[in-house]
């Protein structure tokens, strides 16, 4: 037997382990042999919650795909057949529908947690960037998925969003036609969106694997933002964090299934229960709630903004600028590790950043609120200010703040912070 093979009590497990060391792999990844900081609070639950939700989405999605028909004449009715005649089809669909919402809630909290505690900083930049790529893949998945029921919002949402690609210079129109598979959103569009919607979750799954791989290299960040220095700073993932994550999952499921069973359409748009009709435009085209902040940014650029500067000849229109800003708002997040110049990770020891963080959170809520309203009057004005602040925070405040902010003294180590302060968070 190889010297390196780990010994377990069960001979069957030993037999397998010698040939395929999968049990030690599990133990090293999420088991008793994976050391985690001892002070992780409940905000650290949302990574595993997002992971579980992904699995739930794939599981329910498989069953839905067995009964769904991706054809413009049949898609809407096939979804209704799932709701009415397929055994527990309504349950699968409502779990899947609300699962999308829950996935975004979990991931948004997960992202904000990373921002609050500076989790993206060296040496976790790639971990963070992979996370942003996952987020982009989620948005793409959610968008194409929302088209599948072929309701009014499905159709018109698809029309609006695919049209955004027409702003790409030179190739824009060709790309849009290529996406559509024709000259408008139609049956070929629905077909390929179904195909993408089936493929992308597995891409996300693979990305999550990379995300975890990168995570395990340098281990989790923690509320102090101080790196692990010794054995006193860590506890084994199992049983401590498996127990904590399991409890968190219970609470999350109560929330998730509470909506699923008792208000399944709370997050949805009534208009999408009307069959898609290319000849009738809805009074207002509104995306799902999780896209609202970006929708607000998209519509924030004033028509005459670029002319008014008078410096550049008019090379882009307001629509183009809006699209660029919208994508930039997400891409900018990927650069956070370099935009944030502070050496100190955690907001706990950054008195000014801590406040600005919450202002930024509030700003995204304001953007979400604006995104749900028509772009006119004071909504538009507030949307523009909030959009400007979003970028001001990321591109101006964060780079400057690190230079001027007077940070609080950091604890010597994670264990020192735990034993010194009885007022620790969480646990």
């Amino acid at each position, binding site marked *: 037997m190889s010297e390196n093979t780990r010994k377990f009590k069960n001979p069957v497990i030993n037999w397998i382990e010698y040939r395929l060391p999968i049990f030690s792999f599990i133990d090293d990844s999420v088991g008793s042999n994976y050391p985690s900081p*001892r002070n992780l609070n409940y905000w650290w639950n949302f990574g595993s919650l997002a992971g579980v939700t992904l699995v739930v989405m794939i599981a329910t999605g498989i069953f839905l795909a067995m009964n769904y028909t991706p054809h413009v004449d049949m898609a809407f*009715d096939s979804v*209704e057949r799932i*709701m*009415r005649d397929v055994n527990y089809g*309504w*349950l699968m669909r*409502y779990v899947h529908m609300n699962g999308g919402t829950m996935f975004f809630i979990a991931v948004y909290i997960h992202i904000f947690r990373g921002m609050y505690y500076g989790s993206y900083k060296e040496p976790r930049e790639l971990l963070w960037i992979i996370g942003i790529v996952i987020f982009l893949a989620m948005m793409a998945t959610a968008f194409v998925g929302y088209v599948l029921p072929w309701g009014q919002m499905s159709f018109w949402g698809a029309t609006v969003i695919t049209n955004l690609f027409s702003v790409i210079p030179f190739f824009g129109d060709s790309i849009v036609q290529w996406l559509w598979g024709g000259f408008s959103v139609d049956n070929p569009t629905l077909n390929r969106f179904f195909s993408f919607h089936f493929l992308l979750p597995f891409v996300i799954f693979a990305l999550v694997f990379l995300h975890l791989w990168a995570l395990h290299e340098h281990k989790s960040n923690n509320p102090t933002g101080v790196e692990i220095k010794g054995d006193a700073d860590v*506890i084994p993932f199992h*049983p*401590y964090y498996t*127990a*904590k994550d*399991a*409890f968190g*999952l*219970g*609470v999350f*499921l*109560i929330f998730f*299934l*509470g909506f*699923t*069973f*008792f208000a*399944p*359409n*709370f*997050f949805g748009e*009534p*208009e999408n*229960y*009307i*069959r898609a009709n290319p000849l009738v435009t809805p*009074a*207002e085209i509104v995306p799902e*709630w999780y896209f*609202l902040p970006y929708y607000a940014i998209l519509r924030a650029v004033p028509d005459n903004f670029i002319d008014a500067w008078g410096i550049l000849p008019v090379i882009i229109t307001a629509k183009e600028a809006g699209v660029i800003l919208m994508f930039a708002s997400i891409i900018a997040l990927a650069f956070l590790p370099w935009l944030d110049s502070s050496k100190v990770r955690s*907001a706990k020891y950054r008195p000014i950043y*801590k*406040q600005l*963080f*919450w*202002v930024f*959170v*509030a700003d995204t*809520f*304001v953007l*979400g*609120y604006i995104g*749900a*309203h*028509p772009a006119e009057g004071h909504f538009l004005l507030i949307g523009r200010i909030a959009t400007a602040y979003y970028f001001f925070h990321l591109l101006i405040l964060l780079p400057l703040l690190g230079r001027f902010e007077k940070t609080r003294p950091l604890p010597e180590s994670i264990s020192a912070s735990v034993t010194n302060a009885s007022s620790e968070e969480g*646990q």
Partner: protein
Amino acid sequence: MGKIFIAAGLALGLSFGVFASDASASSGKAAPSQEWTFDGVFGNFDRAQLKRGYQVYQEVCAACHSLSQIYYRNLSEIGFTEDEVKKIAAEFEVPRGPDDEGETHEDGEQIMRAAKPFDKLVQPYANEQAARAANNGALPPDLSLVTKARKGGANYLHALLTGFADAPEGFKMQDGMSYNVYFPGAQIAMAPPIDDDAVEYADGTKASKDQISRDVAAFLTWTAEPELEDRKRIGIKVLIFLIIFTAMLYAVKRRVWAKLH
């Protein structure tokens, strides 16, 4: 200080409603909330009410509105017996399929047969064009999902059906339209469909305008969400299980973590 911002953020988000709907100028007046048997965690349909609602649909609404997601067999779910369902279905005719010689027409006429429980409810118009032609250009929407497809659901439907009035002075009405504040734009192509005693209920319930509107709104809630009772019944069991199980998981977590200190 951080806490203040959390509170401010939440207050902003929730009170103004990132999620909440609001009444913008284009949508109609918000419908007042009514009491429904299917409200709440323990909500149930009132079978007698659904049967009355079906009667209203069939005698009033069905003249113009289809119910395309519903089969005659579904009516057994609201309290009709199997024989009653067969009898109801047999009152309608559907095109017959080809016979052994492949014939579907006789003397140029489509051959019809009596509808059976496995048939969908017969629609009032052959197609959209026919529906528009008969309704001054307007298309009476399919009602299968109407309570899910309108903000306010059954409340909206009840408000709309009882909310017809004379247009206020100076309000410019288009030809053939009716005034109704609950409809977006306050002009609706549907003439007031319901009056007191528009139907005569088999079960002797007094058929006031309010009662009729209420019954048909309940019936259309069932057509939109036939799973509602199952959903709530299972949901209660699931949540009770989860609450107990989560409490146990919390105890386990406490126990495990107690070793640390």
